[in-house]
């Protein structure tokens, strides 16, 4: 059953990596704001609206067919 050591070590290393990533994300302020990111992701492009009825407004889009 020594192989379980390999699995545990590998898993712990990955988990440790995630822990470092987690600490970084908290310390660097990634989660200071837990509201606006969810709204910001909805706004794709400041220059154009994503609604379908605007899709014929292709002034700033390069159409390739």
């Amino acid at each position: 059953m020594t192989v379980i050591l390999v699995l545990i070590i590998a898993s712990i290393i990955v988990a440790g990596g995630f822990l470092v990533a987690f600490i970084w994300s908290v310390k660097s302020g990634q989660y200071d704001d837990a509201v606006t990111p969810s709204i910001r992701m909805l706004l794709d492009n400041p220059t154009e609206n994503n609604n379908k009825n605007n899709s014929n407004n292709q002034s700033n889009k390069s159409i390739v067919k």
Partner: protein
Amino acid sequence: MELEKFSYDNKIVKQFAYATMFWGIIGMLVGLLVALQLVFPALNFDFAPTTFGRTRPIHTNAVIFAFVGNGIFMGVYYSLQRLCKARMFNDFLSKLHFWGWQLIIVAAALTLALGFTTGKEYAELEWPIDIAITLIWVVFGINMFGTIIKRRESHLYVAIWFYIATFVTVAMLHIVNSFEIPVSFMKSYSWYAGVQDALVQWWYGHNAVAFFLTTPYLGLMYYFIPKAANRPVYSYRLSIIHFWALIFLYIWAGPHHLLYTALPDWAQSLGVVFSVMLIAPSWGGMINGLLTLRGAWDKVREDVVLKFMVVAVTAYGMATFEGPLLSLKNVSAIAHYTDWIVAHVHVGALGWNGFLTFGMLYWLLPKMFCTDLYSKKLANWHFWIGTLGIVLYAVPMYWAGFAQSSMWKQFTEEGQLQYRFLETVTQIMPMYALRSLGGLLYLVGALMMVYNLIKTVKAGSFLANEDASAPALPKVVKTHGNEHWHRWIERRPIQMLVISLVVVAIGGVLEIVPTFLVQSNIPTIASVKPYTPLELQGRDIYVREGCYTCHSQMIRPFRSETARYGEYSKAGEFVYDHPFQWGSKRTGPDLARQGGKYPDSWHYNHMLDPTSMSPGSIMPSYSWLLDNELDTAITGAKIRAMITLGVPYPAGYDKIANQDLIKQADQIVASLSKDGIETMNNKEIISLIAYLQRLGKDIKGETTTSK
């Protein structure tokens, strides 16, 4: 602040979308064939590449790595660019990733059909393809991290975290599980043996579900559901907790696939505990996805994309409720080896992965082609037919699993087993038929989608490069607290990349460790001996034909199993099994104590026509084994590989192995000839008989001598 102009690469998204649809149809078509083969064994066509043992791995590999795989890349390439406000890192790497992955899929389909397999479920592909997968995965990683590094949005949206976890963990799983020693160009032996191999395999298998079928799709859920509903996710805070809790718990749950097997008890319990805990983050995620639509349920009535996504998230919730339940030892005792598990995975695969993919495709393609969906009505029909298909698939399989398991365990009042194994199979045949119907409906729905989307694509004009603009990220991020420590941590994306590369490098370090493991392969049961050369060759044919897809070799310590099959399996019996062949499903009976149960001639006739020995059997014929000649030129190389792995053959045995092989083959030919069967000693069937007659023999000798 200066606005930077750039464009999103839609072409790569389109390519992955087309590949998703193409491989989806192929994978489901093969799935339908596999399902029908259980109802009509004639559909095996008496042809090796189309026999169940080979078509089933083709189906699983195609739907997981080709359909869902391409679906992941489609969604990631679309959402990552927009979340990072940056084009993909490198267009060439995108192309390389796309074509590399498609080539791997084609190679996988061909080699599996030809019988090149490692015999480890969901990791069947042979070593050259394993290496190709690693390389392409790294290409994907570089492309993804490159994009993250050059992003113009400092906050990493939760979806990106899910993508990162997917990349890192899949890399580790694939590398650790794929340690194998090549024997020839397309043949290798797993580095691990028996119980160790089983543990590694199911650590991989479970985490493949976790990090290939779940985490990337959760990331996609957190992007595409808010997008499709045009509403922010219910609780962003919950999504963050969901992510971190999920990845820290998921890695440890693998042993729940091996409950009541020869795996040590403490390892089993560890798996159970973590599996039960998993329900919390899983349901947190499901609730978060569903509640995103709070106050907008009227949209779900109108919008077919949201319908698909709602059913997908609901299916995720059901599957992740059932998972912890199945991880309990008393539930596993009933469900393991039955169709219950097949039902469970298909709720996840058809509902969660399939429907979320369909939802993404219906949303993405019209958007990229600047048009509306060709027919909303047709998409609605797809939704209902698909949902009906899932129900017709899952319910019969639950029924079949429970019925069969109950029959296996049923004793008469006199204390005898009430049903022969075959009776438990014929009993559930109507369920198999109904399941095929469910699968057919699901496939029909998918075909309707493909038609609908082709029409959509024809009507629209493709936007290959979507212009966008965003201010560049300030180079220096505001610091606080310990300056020195932060300076290092500030280079965050690079640091993330470093972490991931370190993790990948661990694979290389671990390469040394398995050599130490060889030591622990020393048998703990004195009577367990290495396979003879003929048996070893026969075992490779057993692996090649995918016998493990229907037959287990692991008797659990239950009265109902020991009464049916014999003494329960011990860990020490498998020390020379590279790879292990415990199996996970009993469509046919367990074979762990098959040796000596029937005469050689029974096996010969049974392989030619199973129904001649067991009327009503749904096992396919393996007639080609009677004609194919055994490749004895490779025997020496196989023995040498086994010696490297620590199997105690005498030194120099590889040179004389074929003499022993022929001697044993002649004995079997003589025994067959006594029963009126004339054949030659160089046929593949001879080696397979030798292997089957060996199964469980070692320990039988042990118990008789100790008595």
